[in-house]
């Protein structure tokens, strides 16, 4: 058994690559779901049970920080772990995400070895 992971990124190529790298990392995933922005992600979360969200920050329509805020104020899904996956690597941005409730921060570019320990730790904390 693995986790259901929602990958949120406006780039279809990046969603495919994130899935590939997470699989290569050995982190156990049963199902990947996808969304192209925060609005689409909230639609998916309203309909399906998700164990973990990996979300880009810089997206049109609803960005990753807005999505994070929506999740963390929704009492039904507030405990859902959210990892921000972003090119934005400044300490200020990472602190901002953490203060808004992000459970982890993955800076692009990243390799499989950066992923497994981070995600397993987050899922362990969440359980």
């Amino acid at each position: 058994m693995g986790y259901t992971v929602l990958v949120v990124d406006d780039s279809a190529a990046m969603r495919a690559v994130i899935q590939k790298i997470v699989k290569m990392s050995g982190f156990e995933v049963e199902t990947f779901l996808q969304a192209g922005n925060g609005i689409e992600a909230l639609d998916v979360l309203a309909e399906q049970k998700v164990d973990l969200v990996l979300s880009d920050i810089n997206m049109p329509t609803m960005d990753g920080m807005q999505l994070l805020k929506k999740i963390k104020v929704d009492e039904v899904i507030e405990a859902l772990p959210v990892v921000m996956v972003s090119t934005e690597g400044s300490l200020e941005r990472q602190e901002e995400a953490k203060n808004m409730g992000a459970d982890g921060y993955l800076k692009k570019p990243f390799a499989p070895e950066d992923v497994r320990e981070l995600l397993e730790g987050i899922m362990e904390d969440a359980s």
Partner: protein
Amino acid sequence: MTDGSPVQFLAQAADEVLGTMFFAFVDVLSSPDELMDGPLMEVAFHGQITFSGPVTGTVDAWCPNDPCKVLCANFLGQEEEEVPDEVTIDAFKEMTNMIVGRFLALVEPEKVCELGLPAVDKTTNIDITPFFDDPERYLVLDTGDGTIAFELTMGEA
């Protein structure tokens, strides 16, 4: 802002991103004589992204059709013949986005710089010979399969 040459930070960012996610190991070129396919990019993908905040500016990137397809195929784990133009454009946008994001983290590690959304189009007949005359503004890299060239325009904060 970190001390140092912005173009050198851009070179470091490109090296890290291309090496980690595109499986391309790059060399910085200093003369048009080193270009394996010559200085004229007959058909090239062109990416552009702006940034603002403590540092502001624009990065443009050009990569000829064939090496760009190789890089994007590497990124996606596909064969280059399987990568259509629209997917190459999407992957090249991500490449530009990641390189500039990493560049900003090197130049300004503490503060948030806002990245614009990257735009990519196809262009023709770009002669990069003049790029070698201004190493504080331009960066030309050999990816092993071809060339990728950058122009960095820094503005006032």
